[in-house]
């Protein structure tokens, strides 16, 4: 399948999502993050570390819980219309390779997550403005955090896509995803399990720069996270692709 036909497939996927409510989910987590950031109390914090603390506060809920959960929702959503309307059959009866279809679905999930991370920049700006420290924003730290968080979500997206392709139910893969995300609160504190738990990687990736959290798995270097993320990504994509190729439509 050529590059142009893949672009066509992407266009079709975009069209399917265009009239849906999925886009409303994009700003929810950043809105909450801005609110949490704006309401945090920085008065007792020395001026030099104010920004670092604010960034961690803004990203905390998002990285620890909402982003992994959103990854699952997006993955389920891009498969939803195929399951409900017999779309797998209709799409794969067209000149479409299964690898390309998987690629297009995965691309959509990754794009939605990237959109969330972009809106998150706005949340960080808003929270900084409320505290009057817009000038001391550490752009490098913020952007590296957002990018690492996004990368760390891609293996989860691959795993959830695998589950969503397999299960025609919308809720089942989501429920499992939420159940696996909630232990994050404990797992990130463990230097033994944290580095290997896929759902904890976004938090480790986004919050490691924070400065305050130099305990548990947080004191691991960035490279460590990227190795876990890279390996699990390859594993989950391979599994999902193999599954889709063998699936009887």
């Amino acid at each position, binding site marked *: *399948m050529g590059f*142009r*036909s893949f672009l*066509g*497939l992407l*266009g*079709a996927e975009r*069209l*399917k999502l265009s*009239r*849906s409510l999925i886009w409303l989910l994009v700003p929810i987590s950043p809105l909450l993050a801005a609110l949490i950031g704006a309401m945090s109390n920085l008065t007792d914090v020395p001026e030099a570390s104010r920004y670092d603390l604010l960034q961690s506060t803004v990203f905390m809920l998002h990285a620890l819980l909402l982003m992994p959960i959103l990854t699952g929702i997006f993955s389920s959503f891009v498969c939803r*219309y195929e399951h*409900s*309307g*017999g*779309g797998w*059959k*209709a*799409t*794969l*009866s*067209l*000149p*479409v*390779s299964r690898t390309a279809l998987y690629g297009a679905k995965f691309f959509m999930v990754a794009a939605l997550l990237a959109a969330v991370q972009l809106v998150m920049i706005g949340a960080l700006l808003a929270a900084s403005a409320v505290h009057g420290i817009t000038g001391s924003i550490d752009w490098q730290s913020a952007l590296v955090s957002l990018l690492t968080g996004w990368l760390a979500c891609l293996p989860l997206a691959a795993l959830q896509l695998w589950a969503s392709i397999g299960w025609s139910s919308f809720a089942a893969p989501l429920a499992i995803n939420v159940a696996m995300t909630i232990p994050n609160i404990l797992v990130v504190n463990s230097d033994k399990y944290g580095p290997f738990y896929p759902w904890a990687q976004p938090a480790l990736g986004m919050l490691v720069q924070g400065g305050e959290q130099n305990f548990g798995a947080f004191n691991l270097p960035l490279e460590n996270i990227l190795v876990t993320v890279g390996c699990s990504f390859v594993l989950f994509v391979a599994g999902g692709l193999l599954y889709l190729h063998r699936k*009887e*439509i």
Partner: protein
Amino acid sequence: MKEWIIETRGLGKRYKGRYAVSNLNLQIAKGEIYGFLGPNGAGKTTTIRMLLGLIKPSGGSIRIFGRPLEKDRLSILRKVGSLVEYPSNYGHLTAVQNLEAIRRIIGVPASRIDEVLAIVGLTKEAKRPVKGYSLGMKQRLGIASALLGNPELLILDEPTNGLDPSGILEIRELIKEMPRQYGITVLISSHLLSEVEQMASVVGIIRRGELVFQDTINSLRTQSQSAVTLRVSEREDALGVLASRGIEAAIGAGDSTLSLGSAGDAAVALAVKELVQSGHAVYRVEEDRKTLEKLFLEIVGEDGSL
């Protein structure tokens, strides 16, 4: 030798040790409407899914347009339009958007959307979300989707399922036009002979996964020569009258009926004349039109409960 658009050899699909389809040899020639018949669960949809590469056969080979499906799936599917089991569409999108989603994948000009909507008569409803459509309209949209890529082969799996009589008629008229107007070869599956009888040129009948009949519809008709039934007064006497004139007849199944078998027009006319002249009243002269359906039921066997 004929040019086969679809040719399968020894095609089989096994599920947990049981064959859903076995040793299937389909041959579908260019420009034909091929009626693929069989009771529910006989393996029609399984076969069609294999023809589209949606499931892998357990054995045998498939050639479409003379090329192996396994190797050339994408380039073959580019020239195939299909509708499997029930129409699939995205309910939150309009008919135009549904077709646009497919158009982006197969890359035909945008004007083609209006063309296929006009062919299936959905132009007026094209801007409404599909979830508000009736089943018949969804079915027509499904056919529009199948036609979008200017296919050379249409594969339609029970396209009239769940439609009312006028919807069935509409779809039938639509399909009949395909070979004539566009040179498209059509494979249409159904569990009702009466439904494809009027449009198919060739029929294949599948029973418990095996092809038990494959020939022209005319050859099926000659095998099921129609029987003429007479309803007369004093049946036994009438039978005697016919026998004395050398006309073969038998006691019929109904009250006061005589069966003339597959008698020709002249023989029937003679029988009526003789009966009337010898003072019998002839109430009815009927041709038993159900025999083709009966033959079909015989072919598909007991499990063909219709």
